[in-house]
């Protein structure tokens, strides 16, 4: 398994292998999911005509693969899905990125894709919440909103013809992320869902699962009341849900909150090591498992928890399939 660098002793190795074998046998694999490598011919039924999709090309009347991956077929379309390629952005994805550069009227953001994404100044809410044209003064004050090496979350607005990505962060839930940590996981482990923002009130933690494989775990800053925002006293504070007030930043998060953030972050790391899909339910299961085993946070990345998580997941999936049958 790629990327697992755990030192397992003999029994742990056996348990892990057994759990992984169980998961393999449970996962449904149809016969047409053939893994191909570069220049392998793909068996295609030519009678109905065939559409050669991404990752294929034609050679002597045969369809050959240009990527290493798994063959996917949809009606007449045949394409090769690469297993470990970079994140391929699509319109509407929610992503977490890091500001790389502040340029004229836009920010350049690194989102773990082929190219950096671009966030135009006009696609970002102003601190004073007024909808207006961006003036030259706004352009000069861009650094107040985002600086280099800040983290932020946004949505992909569109993909231009030359591959440039445009982001938009117009809603309240998008914007700068602070008081937390960023985790980088392989992007294929985060599937597109309805909800990418999760708030855990009982632990005071907010979780953003970016489709590009960047996951943000941070402190949950309680929403300011909408009524309070309109009062003239608060207009110069520039405090929103995501940016946070200046006084609070100086105070720092509570120790308990920080421990929860670290525990959840380690849970995500364990899942990424085992190459399991990262969803809210699985993260909470790992979190609860580590709490029930009374593992101190720095021991969470050890071999024991990885093996227990694998076994737990195998059991859970086998019981859910049994229930279906």
């Amino acid at each position, binding site marked *: 398994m790629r990327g697992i660098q755990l030192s397992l002793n003999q029994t742990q190795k056996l348990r892990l292998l057994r759990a992984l074998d169980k998961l393999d046998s449970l996962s449904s694999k149809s016969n047409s999911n053939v893994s191909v490598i570069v*220049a392998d011919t793909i068996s295609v039924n030519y009678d109905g005509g065939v559409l050669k999709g991404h990752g294929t090309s034609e050679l002597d009347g045969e369809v*050959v693969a240009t990527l290493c*991956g798994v063959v996917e077929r949809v009606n007449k379309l045949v394409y090769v899905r690469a*297993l470990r390629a970079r994140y391929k952005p699509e319109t509407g994805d929610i992503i977490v990125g890091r500001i790389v550069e502040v340029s004229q009227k836009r920010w350049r953001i690194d989102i773990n894709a*082929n190219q950096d994404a671009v966030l135009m100044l006009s696609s970002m809410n102003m601190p004073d919440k007024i909808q207006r044209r961006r003036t030259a003064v706004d352009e000069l004050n861009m650094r107040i909103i985002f600086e280099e090496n800040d983290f932020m979350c946004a949505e992909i607005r569109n993909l231009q013809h030359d*591959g440039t990505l445009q982001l938009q962060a117009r809603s309240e839930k998008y914007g700068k992320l602070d008081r937390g940590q960023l985790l980088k996981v392989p992007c*294929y482990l985060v599937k597109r869902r309805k909800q990418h923002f999760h708030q855990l009130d009982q632990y005071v933690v907010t979780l953003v699962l970016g489709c590009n494989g960047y996951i943000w775990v941070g402190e949950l800053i309680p929403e300011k009341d909408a009524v309070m925002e309109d009062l003239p006293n608060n207009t110069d504070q520039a405090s929103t849900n995501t940016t946070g007030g200046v006084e609070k930043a100086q105070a720092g998060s509570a120790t308990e909150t920080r421990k929860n953030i670290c525990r959840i972050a380690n849970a995500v790391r364990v899942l990424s090591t085992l190459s399991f899909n990262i969803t809210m339910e699985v993260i909470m299961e790992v979190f609860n498992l580590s709490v029930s085993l009374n593992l101190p946070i720095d021991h969470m990345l050890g071999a024991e928890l990885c093996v227990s998580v694998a076994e737990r997941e195998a059991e859970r999936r086998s019981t859910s399939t049994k229930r279906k049958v």
Partner: protein
Amino acid sequence: MATKRGGSASSTTYSPWSNQKTRRQKRLDLKDPDWVRADGRLFHQCRPAFFRTGAVSAAAGSAYAELGDTKVIVSVFGPRESKKAMLYSDVGRLNCNVSYTTFATSVREQGSDHKEYSSTLHKALEGAIILESFPKTTVDVFALVLESSGSDLPLVVSCASLALADAGIMMYDLVTAVSLSCHGPNLILDPLVEEESHQDGSLMVTYMPSRVEVTQLTITGEWSVSRIHEAMNLCISACSRLGDVMRSCLKEAAAAAADDT
């Protein structure tokens, strides 16, 4: 304690191979038809090759290869942003770099980039990669030779094409490479360092097995046309065999990765 024997070339570095001069004298009668290669191989026999992908976890794709004692590790980064100075181009760019570690050769030397090998690697790979699939971006290929024991550049080319396949870069086919050394009437495949150092001529072919296309041919020395044909046929059949080994390595890696998802 460190007395010099037979006057080695560099008087300040310690070399474990202190009796090189005596060994060289034995070699001189290589036009002799009974000459046997140093490791007992046949003339047209290559060393066993070992390939493994996924050696470097930080890179987009990577591969490690061994050919006898020669060891090479290649990491591929990208496609990633080109430098600002680059104007818009609708094809991608390929950037290759081959460097030797300081402990790669028998005499410790300054580890530095090998510019000639880097440009040869670039020419060998650019025919196989579909550059239109990543416009405006760059793919960086970094090759590091850990131990050099003859036939370095062919192994670097083969390992680099595996690393590119591992990174998910679209290619027409894998690129395999084999080099051949000419000693009088004998053509020997996959030469060692000593065999390379007193060869009459050399020929290196980089070949795409499934497409039956040669991406690059490098010849040094004096060759007749019939000799070139014979040498190329030998190299191409060796490349096809090497291609099978590489494909089986990729298949294992792809099957293992497909099981995870």
